[in-house]
């Protein structure tokens, strides 16, 4: 006579033994097709979740982003302009290349930590950390030669005759020669700046 406990134990034992040596208990066809389907579902789910975290809607769902950097973005050219083409958060802040994207996403787990412990949960705290946080982004863009800028703004397609004299000269002198990269001159293009004391090129 089986007690309920023994029944349960029997079930657990059978699941474990088939998981331990599946080929002994399940057909090879089932394992192949089932494995394939499970793989598709897992990868699809993973990718969907990853892509969801790559949307502006997701970013501004935290008030830290919505009340600080997002409202600052709104009056700038990257949000409001004549043609209506605009950049969303991940366009500039998440690399497009898969491996780089994954490594950035792994770094972002630190940001979850910050969220949980309220590192920047007030405007004052955010302003206090702003120089450090902006510095991370400047360093990243400096290291990858402003790749996220160049995903949209290519030097090949840049018609300097359509630019103001000032801009055309600056781009010819510093950008096309590779002497400087976008972020060297265009800090604060989309958000307010931190205290720029000691930052190169700022007085």
């Amino acid at each position, binding site marked *: 006579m089986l007690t309920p406990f023994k029944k349960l134990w029997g079930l657990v034992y059978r699941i474990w033994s088939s998981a331990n040596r599946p080929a002994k208990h399940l057909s090879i066809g089932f394992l192949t097709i089932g494995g394939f389907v499970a793989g598709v579902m897992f990868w699809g789910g993973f990718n969907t979740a990853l892509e969801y975290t790559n949307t502006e809607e997701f970013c501004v769902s935290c008030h830290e982003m919505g009340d600080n950097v997002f409202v600052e973005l709104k009056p700038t*050219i990257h949000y409001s302009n004549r043609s209506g083409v605009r950049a969303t958060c991940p366009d500039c802040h998440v690399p497009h290349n898969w491996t780089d994207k994954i490594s950035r996403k792994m770094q972002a787990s630190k940001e979850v930590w910050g969220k949980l412990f309220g590192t920047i949960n007030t405007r004052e705290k955010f302003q206090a950390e702003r120089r450090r946080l902006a510095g991370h982004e400047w360093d990243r863009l400096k290291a990858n030669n402003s790749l996220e800028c160049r995903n949209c703004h290519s030097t090949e397609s840049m018609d300097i005759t359509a630019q103001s004299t000032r801009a055309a000269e600056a781009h010819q002198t510093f950008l096309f020669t590779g002497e400087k990269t976008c972020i060297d001159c265009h800090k604060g293009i989309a958000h307010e*700046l931190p205290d720029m004391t000691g930052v190169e090129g700022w*007085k």
Partner: protein
Amino acid sequence: MRRFLVHLTTALGLIAFTNVALSDGTATLRQGEPISVEAEAPKMTKVENNDVKRVRNYPEQPPTIPHKTRSYEISLNANKCMSCHARTRTGESQAPMVSITHYMDRDNQVLATISPRRYFCNQCHVTQVEAAPLVENEFVDVEELLKGE
């Protein structure tokens, strides 16, 4: 009774004066549009962006800005203008240096960086647009004035 008449005359006089002021179009930007109706706003004009200096109307006039300054931050944290117009930045930017007076405090003591009282550039320096003046400008350049005499 006499006092009442004085008040009445004053009131009527005021009304008459306001009417004159309103009718010549200088006292209101509504241009005769009734207060209950929303007047059509004039078109926004583009900011001059030709990098060409405008002549100053008198020597002390703060020069106008011949380029766009959209989103140029001037705050406690940063001064975007100075990232080109500061003395040490003009080599790279080829922009005109801010005047020497901007490096002096109010006792004419020379400072290393821009004086705090000169920090907010757009208090005096402004961008220009091609817009019809709202009121007629009767300013006469001193050179013209001298010729006229």
